[in-house]
Structures are given as C-alpha cells and as structure tokens.
C-alpha cells in the first residue's frame, strides 16, 4: 500500500501522527511529513485509522 496526501486539503491537524506516528509526523515547520510512503502491512490498521480520522480527509491509500 502507498500513502497519498492531498496537500491542498491537509491542515496539519496531526491526528494521523497521533494514531500512526511510525508513518506520519507534523514537524516544527507545521507541515506533515510522511515517514514511510509505503508502510509495511503490519501498520495497515493504524494507517486505515489515520485515513478515517483525518479531519480534512486528506489521506488516501493506493494499493500497489
């Protein structure tokens, strides 16, 4: 799976970082950084939760 961010929508709410810190980090520059663009299957549940909870619905998963 591949994590795709819609940068027009992202407003750095950082909910993704709360539920999947291995994959998402909002840094001091107030921008989201995707730490693992293709996270391992073991993180699927966490990433799906991040996608669901993103207040702006800025995240999607694309299956390879």
């Amino acid at each position, binding site marked *: 799976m591949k994590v795709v961010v819609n940068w*027009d*929508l992202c*407003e*750095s*709410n*950082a909910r993704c970082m709360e539920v999947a810190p291995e994959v998402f980090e*909002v840094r*001091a520059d*107030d921008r989201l950084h995707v730490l693992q663009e293709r996270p391992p299957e073991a993180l699927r549940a966490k990433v799906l939760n991040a996608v*669901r*909870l993103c*207040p*702006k*619905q800025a995240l999607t998963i694309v299956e390879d």
Partner: protein
Amino acid sequence: MKLTEVDLTNLDFFVHGDPHEMWTALRREAPVYWHNKGGQRGFWAVTTYNTAMEVYHDPRQYSSERGIALQFNDVATTDNAGFGMMMIATDPPRHQKIRKVISDRFTPRAVMPYEPHVRRIAREIIDSVVDRGECDFVVDVAAKLPTAVICEMMGIPREHWDTMFMLGNMSIGTEDPEYQQSRTAMETGSYAQAQFFSYFSKLIDERRKRPGDDLISALAHGLVDGVNLNDLEILFNAFLLIIGGQETTRNATSGGMLALIQNPGECARLKQNPGLLASTIEEFLRWTSPVTHILRTARQDAVLRGHKIRAGDKVVVWNASANRDEEIFKDPFKFDAGRTPNDHLAFGHGEHFCIGAHLARLELRVVIEEVMRRMGDLELAGPVEKLRSNFVAGIKHMPVRFKPTRTARVAA
C-alpha cells in the same frame, strides 16, 4: 419516546425538554428518517455516527451551497446567506481555496503562541467577577473569552466587543424572544447581519489601506486563483468568523462546566489528575456538541443506508446525536473525563471541519484551568436557561456560586 412524537423543529422542546430523547428514538428506530413535521418542509434526519461521516465525507454529493442550517433554509439565497462566498456555505473546489487564505492561522502550532495572551484575558475576565463569589457563568465568563479572542484576532478594537457580543447573540438567537426584542426571527437575523456588515465594511476599507496581521487584513488581501476576494466575500467570511468564534466555544465551556457540576465525581477526578485535562476537553465537546445540526442538500439522486435520497432533498446531520451513538461510544450518556478514544463530531468532519477547532481547544483548556483555580466549589445558584434553537446548543444564563481565590497565582 415514540417515533411519532419526534419533532426536531419544535424549538420549545429544545428549551424545556431533552432533545436526546428524540435522537435516541431515531437512532434506535430510524437512523435515516424522513422528517416531515411541524408544517416545515421535510428533511432527512441522520442521527448515527457512521452515516453522519458518510454524508460529511461526500461534499460533492451533499452540498453546502443551498444552506447549512434548518432555520431560514426556505428563504436562504446567495445574497442573504452567502452561497458560494461564505466558506461554510461553499462547495469544493472553491471552498478550500478561500479557506487557504486564513487556514495557516488556525493550525495547532499556529494557535499555540496565543496561549499566554488567552490566559491573560481569561484572568482579567475572572478578576472582574471573582470578588462577588457569584456570577452568571455564561455572560460574565464563558462568553467573554471567545469574544475577546476572536475580536483580537480580527483586529476589532476593545470598545466594540460588547456590540459584537450583542449582535452575535442576535444572529444565533433569532428564534429566542430574549434576543428578538419584539422583532420577528427573520428581522432579528437580518438586522444583526446588516449591523455586522456595515461595521466590517469600515474595517475592511481601513485594512485595505493599512494591513495588519489580523484576519480581516488576511481576507482583504488574500488571493484565490490569483484574484482578491470581492467585498461581499470578505464580509460574509468576516461574519462567519465572528459568529463561529463567539457562539460555539462559549457553549462548550458553559455546558461542560455544567456537566462537571452535575458529575462531582468526575470533577474531583480531574482535580486530582490534571493529566485528564485533554480528555476532559474532548468530553466537553462531545457532551455539549455546540453545533447541534448541519444541513446539506443532495445534488443528485443517491442511496443512503438503503434510503432513496432525491436530488434537492435536505439531509440534516445531527452532530449531537452522532456523539451519543451507542455503537461508537461506550456508555454514551456517561460524562467521562477520561474517555478514550473520543472521536466525536463536535467540529464536523471532512471538507468543512471546523477551522477554529484548535483555537477552541486552547480556549477551553485555559478557561477550565483558570476557573478551577479561582472559582472553587462551583455550584448552581439558579435555573439554567437554554437558547431556543435546534442549531446551537446554547446556554444563555447559568447563575453560579463559588469560593473565590482572589489572586491569579502563576503556575506556569
């Protein structure tokens, strides 16, 4: 309550009854319900969490450009309700473009530096009532902070804050006799909006010439597709900010403190464990759900949980109900200061997620801390008066009594 007794347009029930009786019946028996009562135009009432999310996550199908609330929906137009201009009533892709003009002012990191300032305002507000040992918690405390904070952010001088407060009350309290002052609901809303627009017109002219770092300046100079917003777009969005800033956080504050008064065990738990502050704030939001409902209009025929929705149908998402959904929240009718997870929909979700969410959380954190520090043993000293509205879960008055701590001891 029986389904046949449900009438979500009966505003008096929102004052004197418990609307949760209606939503609980709807969630149980008809989570997507064709509501056609009270002589008003029918609408679909969505009362469960997952269906609410489904509607929120499809802004192209469930449009905001034909109104966002039940009140005046029949008579709302582009001219009087800012369709396609005011962010809350604008669909993608334009919505997000307007939003970008100010959204960097509202991220968690962007609002963090306001904290000392918000705290200073909160202390001044409490200083002004603390000696009395009693006050109207809404008018004297809970409403004062959000008004001060949003006015400062918009660059509205202090001498006009009382006017902003009064006009905000009228804008949201159009159906409440206290704010109507013998006008009709429509006249009340129109009057307040006209007053706001005339006031903001002058501010906009001023900020066009001499921009500051306030939100009015940002709106006046911001570019959407390389073009400045026009006057009406700026006015509607300034109006949105002053209403959104004032009329929501105050109710989360008052309703949340009321929940703490009514649940002394949870209050004691929070006092003993300040680490619960963050979860208490989220529980305030879930519990009070300051924006009771949000309306959408179906663009095309669609199926929602097996129901045929026709193009043009009104679909009303009841946030207050979704936030008590038994399938999502364990013991939803228990106020739990430590509730985790707590993925409530008090700020909506998706495209139109509340832009001020982090500012609201900051204000709530500061006000809870300061009230608990300075207004000990808070208790009710008279009847709680609710706003006559099915849109905003307002508390107009909440007389309280407390043991004053006169000096604001600096803890941090």
